[in-house]
């Protein structure tokens, strides 16, 4: 069935027809390009500001910088060294990586169990996990704070926040991955079973290699979610030297309230890794979102 994606004109258009089409399409073009520009402008503004010296920022609008070239990287070096953003960047990495790998691993194992192993209450349990997906993190802030303290001051380090993020990422992981695993060819798995392979080796040798796109989708989704998180980091990271960038930026906001030179550089630093991840792995990110929301 031909869909809009594959719509192909059957005969070439004459010049008049093409002109007509372009003219009627012009509002579309104007609308799209106009909106795209509007969408880009805020980020662009911040970006340009981050390269301007402090006095310039106070004196003229950032759009002037596009014509009067006077760019500096001083803001970035200030913010990385004296405002501690460089350190905070490392903290963000240190928080995000385990908080992505853990739910991915545990989630994949569980998803496999739900998809390809039969055991009692399997579907009920899975429904329960689906239900857990929407629980807001506000319900766990206080109890986890206490729990981490009683279990040996897990708030002093990163273990606490790793566990918290893992717990909140698991329902989505299990849901996404299980929905993907059930689309794997049944014969492949049955054949392996007949050959006497254990579930674990089926998981390792068949399911995982075939599921790289789905695993990547969840991983990127979770990575961005944890990297960009503010509230959990505010609550579960007590040690100021372990603060990630999101929290560190809010401190800049209160201290240097109107010093847009520093704030903009910091904001851009915060954005650069997610943007890189996003642009290079856009496909997987979108897949992850779609799989979780639209019936595949």
């Amino acid at each position, binding site marked *: 069935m031909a869909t*809009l994606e594959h*719509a192909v004109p059957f005969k070439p258009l004459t010049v008049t027809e093409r002109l007509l089409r372009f003219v009627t*399409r012009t509002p*579309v*073009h104007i*609308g*799209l390009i106009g909106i795209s520009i509007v969408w880009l402008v*805020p*980020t662009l*503004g*911040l970006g340009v500001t981050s390269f301007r010296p402090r006095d310039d*920022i106070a*004196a003229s*609008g950032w*759009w002037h910088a596009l014509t009067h070239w006077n760019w500096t990287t001083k803001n970035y070096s200030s913010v990385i060294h004296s405002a501690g953003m460089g350190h905070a960047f490392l903290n963000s990495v240190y928080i995000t990586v385990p908080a992505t790998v853990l739910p991915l691993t545990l989630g994949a*194992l*569980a998803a*496999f*169990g739900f998809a390809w*192993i039969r*055991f009692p*209450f399997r579907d009920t349990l899975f*429904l329960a*996990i*689906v239900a857990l*997906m*929407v*629980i*807001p993190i506000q*319900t*766990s*802030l*206080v*109890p986890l704070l206490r*729990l981490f303290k009683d279990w040996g001051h897990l708030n002093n380090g990163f273990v606490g926040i790793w566990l918290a993020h893992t*717990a*909140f990422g*698991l*329902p989505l992981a*299990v849901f996404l991955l299980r929905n993907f695993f*059930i689309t794997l060819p049944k014969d492949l798995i049955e054949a392996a*079973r*007949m050959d006497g392979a254990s*579930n674990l080796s089926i998981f390792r040798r068949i399911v995982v290699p075939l599921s790289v796109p789905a695993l990547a989708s969840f991983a990127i989704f979770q990575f*961005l979610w944890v990297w*960009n998180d*503010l509230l959990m980091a505010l609550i579960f990271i007590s040690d100021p030297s372990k603060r990630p960038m999101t929290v560190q*930026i*809010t401190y800049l906001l209160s201290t240097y309230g109107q010093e847009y030179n520093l704030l*903009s550089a910091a904001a851009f630093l*915060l*954005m650069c890794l*997610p943007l890189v991840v*996003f642009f290079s792995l856009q496909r997987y*990110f979108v897949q992850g*979102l*779609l799989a979780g*929301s*639209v*019936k595949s």
Partner: protein
Amino acid sequence: MSQPPLPTPVLEPQEPPRGLGTFRAGERLQGLFFIAPALVVLGIFLVYPAYYTVRLAFYQGDFLYRFSNFLGLDNFKELLTDDPSFLDLSSFPPSGALVNNFRWVIFYIALSLAFGLGLAVLAVRVRYERVVKSIIFVPMAISATAVGLIWLFVYSPDLDNGILNAVIHGVDHGFDPIAWVGRPSTVNYALIFAYVWASTGFVMVVLSAAIKGIPTEIIEASRVDGAGEWAIFRRIMVPMLSLPIAVVTVWLFINVIKVFDIIYVMTGGGPGTSSRVIAYTMYKETFENGRGGYGAAVAVLMLLLVLPVMVLNVRRFRSERVTT
């Protein structure tokens, strides 16, 4: 180690009756091993805390957030009737954090859908669709904190920094710059729009994928019948997209209930308490005023608000369940 399986018959095997013991021996234990770690983590770090919070909502809670001072339903009563920053029905229009979330529900969802759907429909017709999609989608990848900073900058009342004011001033020189996040009449809408900017990309991408799945014959046929673009949009596309639109709306709704970062960064609930939302109230009451039980009551309210979505998700999943 599992026993060798029984030989499979040539015919399609019957689905085993649900819940009874025709499972392969040992398979149940295997299943358990695979799901146990996830269940344990979920049980300890997600389910138990939720229970703790629900219970705490019925107490006052001390500064270490223990169960001290049983209050029954008092926290809830106070929240809904005696806290003007949360819900103030004494004057019209009503105000308070709960009302603000309601505003968010309406405007945030409507605007995101409108922009997302509109852009998806338009972009499908041009060759640079991918580029537009990327541009609109990029804000989704950045932190709400960064979104807040970007828009603080846009809304700045200082003509040299705030591009919104500068643009309006450029068009109408008599215009006095407005502090968009400084006045209660505009602050909520300013915040909402910033978040719409960040979320439209998601709507656009999902709906764009869905639009591409619409069969062209139907569209072409109606064009031949003389239907205008708008009619095609309204009568054919939208109904066919109703499921993805519903899914997206649910996602947007969850976002609204949870929204916190952007308010924390941009206004701190201000000016006054005019831009407060539920999640911010929870934070303030629990961590600033130290009222653990009261904050827990707010969290319970959030839970109640997402309950319909939870039920919806479970139902939807049930209807598309696949057994292997």
